């Protein structure tokens, strides 16, 4: 079995802030493997233990090579990172196009695993678009996987209903954070991954036309980012515990919470 895992290099959202002048400060934020993708990596690495070959595909800036090492440390054979100046403005469509090119060039793959969404874009589009481009079925939101030789059973959670879908391979599956608990990757484990396992490719090497990826040629574009003030407040209640409890209950009732 050959498995392709999509793993994205993203900034850490807990470290992103707006500057006093209202600009989004992403640059200074530390970067990492998209948390949702870690679950896909973990699942793939478990399948690898029973003989599967695992290739990681990603689109990202040159610094993403370091992130690929971390992704490889979960247990994968190699990673292919597509990059270039166009990456900064790439939309989900462009990303899926490039990832499809990687999948074809490195393929065929029986199974493509990806995190359900990426923490930076939050579009949840790339896996679906990729499936469309590869002409395979797509199931999103897996909470459990049963991978067979010719098909995969996917468990999904919809509200409080669980459904099981069986889909023929090859297929693209996006996974949720309920799927598994990814192992911790120690600093040493990352350092032990040789850089030679990360192959960087550009559009030309993938047989794609760079002109189609120029900023003007893309169908969507991020035009603005603004902070939104959420209404949150706090109030300190003081006094004896019994008084505080009574006051708190009254307030909650007043808000309609109780």
């Amino acid at each position, binding site marked *: 079995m050959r498995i392709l895992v999509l793993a994205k290099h993203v900034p850490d959202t807990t470290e992103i802030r707006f500057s006093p002048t209202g600009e989004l400060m992403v640059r200074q934020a530390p970067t990492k493997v998209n948390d949702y993708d870690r679950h896909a990596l973990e699942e793939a690495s478990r399948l690898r233990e029973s003989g599967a070959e695992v290739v990681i595909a990603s689109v990202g800036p040159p610094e993403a090579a370091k992130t690929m090492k971390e992704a490889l440390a979960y247990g994968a054979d190699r990673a292919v990172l597509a990059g270039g100046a166009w990456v900064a403005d790439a939309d989900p469509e462009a990303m899926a196009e490039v990832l499809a090119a990687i999948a074809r060039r490195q393929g065929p793959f029986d199974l493509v695993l990806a995190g359900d969404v990426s923490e930076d874009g939050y579009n949840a589009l790339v896996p679906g678009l990729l499936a469309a481009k590869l002409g395979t079925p797509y199931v999103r939101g897996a909470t459990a996987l049963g991978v067979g030789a010719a098909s995969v059973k996917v468990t999904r959670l919809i509200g409080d209903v669980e459904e099981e879908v069986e889909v023929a391979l090859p297929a693209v599956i996006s996974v949720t954070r309920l799927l598994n608990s990814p192992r*911790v990757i*120690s600093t*040493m*484990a990352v350092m032990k991954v040789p850089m030679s396992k990360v192959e960087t490719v550009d559009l030309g090497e993938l047989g794609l036309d760079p002109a189609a990826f120029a900023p003007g040629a893309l169908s969507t574009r991020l035009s603005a980012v603004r902070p939104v003030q959420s209404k949150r407040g706090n109030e300190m209640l003081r006094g004896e515990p019994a008084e505080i409890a009574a006051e708190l209950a009254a307030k909650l009732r007043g808000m309609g919470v109780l």
Partner: protein
Amino acid sequence: MAASAGPRALLAASSPHYVYMPGLPGAFHWLIYVALIVCLVVAAWLFNRRVRAAGVSPAELAHGLREIASKGPGEALAVVGAEVFGQRRVRRRPYAGLMHLLIFGSYGMLTLGTVLIAVQHDFTGRFFGVTFLNGNFYLVEKALLDTAALGLLAGVAMAAWRRLAIRPVTLGARPTVVVAYAALAVMAATGLLLEAMRELAYPVSWSHWTYAGHLVALAITPLVGRLNLGAYQATWVVHVIAAFTFMGGALATALDHVVLVPLNIALQSSRAPGELRLPFNLAELLESGGDLEGVSSGFANPSELDWKRRFMLASCVNCGRCEEVCPANAAGRPLSPRKLVQALKGDLLSPSDGAGDLFARGVLDTDTVWSCLSCGACARECPAFIDQPETIVEMRRHLVEEGNVDEAKALVLAQLERNQNPLGLPSYQRFARLAEAGVPTIEENPGAEYLYWVGCMSSYDQRAWGVAGAVISLLRLAGVDFAVLGESERCLGECQRKLGDEAGFQMRSMEIAETLRSHGVTKIVTHCPHCLVTLGRDYRSLGMEFEVVHHSELVQSLLAQGRLPTPKSWEGGKLTYHDPCNLGRLSGVFDAPRGLAASVAGESFVELERSREKSFCCGAGGSNYFYKVPAQESVSGLRLGQAQAAGASTVATACPFCLSMLEDAARTAPGGQGPRVADLAELLAEALGLEATAAP
């Protein structure tokens, strides 16, 4: 020879002097030498077998000892002297201490006495005609040796009583050890008996100096008619056989510790308490561009350990002193350092079947290694100088390298990477509060005398903010020139290291040291003992030198210099002080905080039973602040209970983690609100009427 010369008249007439083996054939003394050689060969063979069972070759051991010798053996000798000859740690237990002292001290004296005889008879006397076992020296020596014989009998009686009657769970009474004790007892008893027989057969005027033998002589006088040379010689033979049975065979019994422990103490002597040995130096490793494959910071199985650590584990005498003082054990966590060391030792000597690491094979449970607080209480008690907390961290490293840790621990490690603090709060908020309080950064005040290292707790934790506020107020009042790193401060990684991410810790330390150097920082003050040991001792072991003081030391010296006024009155009732492990036991800072406490509370200061070196952890050490382990009670609750039992209405501490743990325990103390918990700096600032800068 004296024996052949032995007429009574000659003996009776002369002044006190040693007479060599009267009444024994001359060949006997050569037989003793032959027996000695046989005995030493047997002992050496047993020793070889013993250390090889632990996977240590005598050559390695010899090499280790040579290494100590070449580095200057002073320290090792001093430690061995204090611990082996002074029995420093052994003495801490009254019964076992006295027993060891009696056996070890008496046996040592008796051996020395015998050696002196051999030296006089076969060396100085034989070749130079010089004798020294004469006159008053000889008389005193004889009296001492009699005392030693009695002491040895008493010690062996105590040992037998302990193993056979008291029977602590940790001590067995295997036949081998019973034989060894019997041999010692027979040796001492026949020694006295021989003295008595000799006195009766060859009376001398000074026989009351050998008072014990003299008493035996009085007791056996009625039998004197039946005494003949044969009985006397037979007793001699029994005496010699008993002595050599013990000397040659002890290493085959539980008494092998008499050799293993002193050697281990010598091998471990140069280590600071709580110091973790470097499995590698990452900077050097990266510089050499070496292959990282196969590099590991921990151990999956005890057989992988280097020989020094294997020897260390093999030295455990199963005494249970570590278990007795272990706070994790007291709280009913699944950890007893004794059982842990014994399990590793057992697995080392006869590995259990099965594949995988020691956890997979059921030698230990992962909860056991996560229960440890790295408090060092056990290591301080261990008479065999076994480093339990280090061994535990080395197993944690293995688990982390394998990715075999639960989400809570994984989260702490991830947050350290992302947010540069273990609490998972944004790095850009670290300095927010102090910036508001107008605390200068090192950029704003370059060349400040002290860099104040604030640490994660006081940067983020609502309660611990107060500590930083108080320290800053005090430093300002005393006119200390200081600055902080501000937003570029980040976790020093103490928790990361204790969690087992050694490479991550070293990586971090290189980066932080670089930041500090780039600002020309040399002197650092911190109120966090975890930061103190990391920036001080741990960075030094990585080759990065900073002068780091704890706020209690700095503030105490400011008080002493009169740069801070002494507060006038104290209304907080009885004040006690909880020694944070990292500050007290592991850094040796005991007096400065007490000085501070005394200047705040004066006569109202009370010591806890477990104070100073014996302090009891608050429950946060070894990264335990950040995750939970199964337990019957909380460690912090136990510690707070000890403070309550001492009648304290205020518990002072000097560590933001202790503060948080103990305050939490006080909040949930049985019987309502427990004592007040505060940092010493907070108490002093308050007593001086200072508004804590940045207090919430």
